[in-house]
């Protein structure tokens, strides 16, 4: 039996968080929504990464003492946590960015491909992050 919409309340609505009760989404939560949100979140995090790179360059030009303090800050537990977050963000944004470029070329836009590529990006992010930190551990720089 098909549901016949009878009024405005029956029409499908854009997802918004507040109408119909707190956090009552009108649309089903979907993995493609999550990948889209995460692309912006990781992009925002990488804005901070860009500023860290700029700070690194300024520390380097300021001489051995400034550079040493900057590098020990990055090597502190908090610094390592930030670097770990940045590595996750880099690989997620890179993988999902390539996914966007494939979409821009007109491929993989159907629902099934878009869902599959979302999980592929998650897999790539985890694998690449683990690989980089494993290499860093083996190189003895962490």
């Amino acid at each position, binding site marked *: 039996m098909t549901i016949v919409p009878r009024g405005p309340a029956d029409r499908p609505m854009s997802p918004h968080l507040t109408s119909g009760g707190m956090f009552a989404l009108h649309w089903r939560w979907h993995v493609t929504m999550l990948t889209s949100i995460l692309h912006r979140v990781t*992009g925002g995090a*990488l804005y901070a990464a860009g500023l860290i*790179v700029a700070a690194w360059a*300024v520390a380097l030009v300021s001489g051995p003492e400034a550079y*040493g303090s900057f590098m020990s800050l990055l090597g502190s537990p908090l610094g390592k946590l930030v670097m770990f977050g940045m590595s996750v963000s880099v690989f997620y944004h890179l993988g999902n*960015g*390539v996914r966007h470029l494939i979409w821009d070329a007109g491929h993989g836009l159907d629902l099934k491909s878009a869902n599959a590529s979302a999980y592929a990006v998650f897999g790539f992010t985890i694998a690449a992050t683990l690989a980089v930190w494993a290499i860093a551990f083996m190189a003895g720089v962490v």
Partner: protein
Amino acid sequence: MSFRTPLSTARGLGSAKHGVGHWISERVAAVALVPLVLWAVYSCILLAGVDYYGAVAWIGNPVNATLIILTIAIGFFHMQGGVRVIIEDYIYGHLTKAAALMANVFICGLAGSLAIFSILKVALGGA
């Protein structure tokens, strides 16, 4: 006789016709960043293992200096473009939006220029 005002006629003209070039330049930057960022991650591990003098020597290599400057220049361009879209999507007040967009350009321009000048100074033996 037409009742259309000059403003409504102008409004009907559509886009400024600059969208395609802008869209393509963002994609070209994104494609360039794929190999550059992978190289930058590799370089991070390398640089984590050396001291100040090792880092200065690393920057002294013309290939490293060129690639890091390209990564920073294209990266900050890409950052500016990405955050611009976020500001345009979420900030509605006209003046607040203009201020945020300008702050974004100024931050990216200043941080990027500072980073590139610093790297050039080290690479050319000034530090």
